């Protein structure tokens, strides 16, 4: 039989290899090497981390392919990059340069306020953010091979990531006890494809890997998300906006492996230097929040 590329099994499969790991935002090849050295399972190549996008404002777009290619050359681990919601040409460009995963991300300024990318058309896999089960299943329906919580990127405040993880995982737990005859109306109410709702009830989890993202800044934050039941974590601004990025990165990697071992968590949390300066999400205006982007 011929070799088959770009199947859903291989797209979802790479995310399965990232489980129990930490994916780190980097803006230079040097940062990418620090992340790899610290034990990152993948890096997200960006021109600006979310905290800077937030501070500087303006339109946030896909990064320069030149920068992404330099980061791909610098490390042996997978490299992800972000496109704007609905911007399928940015995605075509990232597929052409060979990135390993595309994040169709609310952190960038959306290009389409009604539709996301038809991700089935691509051989490169996609990860998308979600705040609840309906949103997660709409993205999987469009072809996403990995899901992450949205959280509130660039704040260093974990509260929204917790809210979104509890929403998705709690809805899955309740779905286990929902009788089959109620599933169609349930699917209608949450705006999710019926077949995927049925599948989630059978599996007792999302049919793809589910990471936490958006506001994780400490080893304890990472372990909290793991104990809540996610498969791994993205850390954006939390590492390279802190006082000692290499040390904090390595500590978060260890915390994700030993998320259930408080004595190891205590050990790795010591002497990490200054964490990123955070923004308290509850004090933010609604207009400053980006998790609401996505349809």
């Amino acid at each position, binding site marked *: *039989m*011929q*070799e*088959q*590329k*770009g*199947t859903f*099994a*291989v797209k979802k*499969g*790479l995310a*399965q*290899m*990232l*489980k*129990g*790991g930490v994916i780190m935002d980097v803006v230079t090849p040097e940062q990418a090497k620090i992340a*790899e050295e*610290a*034990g*990152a*399972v*993948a890096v997200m190549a960006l021109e600006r981390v979310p905290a800077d996008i937030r501070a500087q404002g303006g339109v946030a777009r896909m990064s320069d392919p030149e920068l992404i290619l330099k980061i*791909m050359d610098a490390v*042996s*681990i*997978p490299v992800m990059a972000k496109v704007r919601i609905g911007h399928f040409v940015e995605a075509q460009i990232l*597929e052409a340069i*060979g*990135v*390993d*995963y595309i994040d169709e991300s609310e952190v960038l300024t959306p290009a389409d306020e009604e539709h996301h990318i038809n991700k089935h058309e691509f*051989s*490169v*896999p996609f990860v998308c953010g979600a705040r609840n089960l309906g949103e997660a299943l709409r993205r999987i329906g469009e072809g996403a091979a990995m899901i992450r919580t949205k959280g509130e990127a660039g704040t260093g405040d974990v509260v929204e990531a917790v809210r979104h993880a509890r929403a998705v995982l709690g809805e899955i737990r309740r779905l286990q006890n929902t009788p089959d005859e109620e599933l169609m109306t349930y699917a209608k109410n949450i705006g999710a494809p019926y077949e995927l709702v049925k599948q989630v009830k059978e599996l007792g989890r999302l049919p793809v890997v589910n990471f936490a993202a958006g506001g994780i800044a400490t080893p304890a934050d990472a372990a909290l998300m793991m104990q809540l039941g996610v498969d791994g974590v993205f850390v954006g601004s939390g590492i390279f906006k802190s006082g000692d990025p290499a040390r904090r990165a*390595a500590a978060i*990697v*260890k915390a*994700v*492996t*030993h998320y259930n*071992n408080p004595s190891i968590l205590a050990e790795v949390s010591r002497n990490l230097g200054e964490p990123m300066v955070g923004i308290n999400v509850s004090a933010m205006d609604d207009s400053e929040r980006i998790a609401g982007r996505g349809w």
Partner: protein
Amino acid sequence: MKVGVLALQGDFAEHLSMLRRIGVEGVEVRLPEELETVQALIIPGGESTTIGKLAVDFGLLEPLRAFGRERPIWGTCAGAIFLSKDAHRQQPLLELMDITVQRNAFGRQVDSFEADLDVKPLKQATGTSEPYHAVFIRAPIIESVRGSAEVLATLPDGRIVAAQQGHLLATSFHPELTDDLRFHQYFVSLIS
């Protein structure tokens, strides 16, 4: 009988689920003392650089080497790299198997693929005739085998994707991502 699955990072839950399906008790192994309770070990897919670094940080390198000299270990993808003597770059390796591997040998993720393999020892051991459908994710190849290491499976073009050296097993692909239980059954048959 208990089979450990190294749970530092990667798709260890998928291996544990396969073990459950063949009626074998599987346990997660993260610390050296947890190795003492298991008769065999699976090193899952994941990132070999991450798994190697965590193995060093938590004092697992020597205990894993000692374990592998006596008892069966099977490495899938990153696990196969970790078992090898040579991966063409500086990263922590167990150096248990006389194989040289090339990481990401097929290219990047867009080149990941599925393919059918003819694995004769697997067919003999399980008394089946169907080909083995294998999933390769940013996979390594086994460039060469030496000493008592033997080739277990190749792609049609001859590139080596599975090798065995006595009670040690290395596969470039991921049986844990399929519904085919034969590789797990084959590995468990190596436990005496």
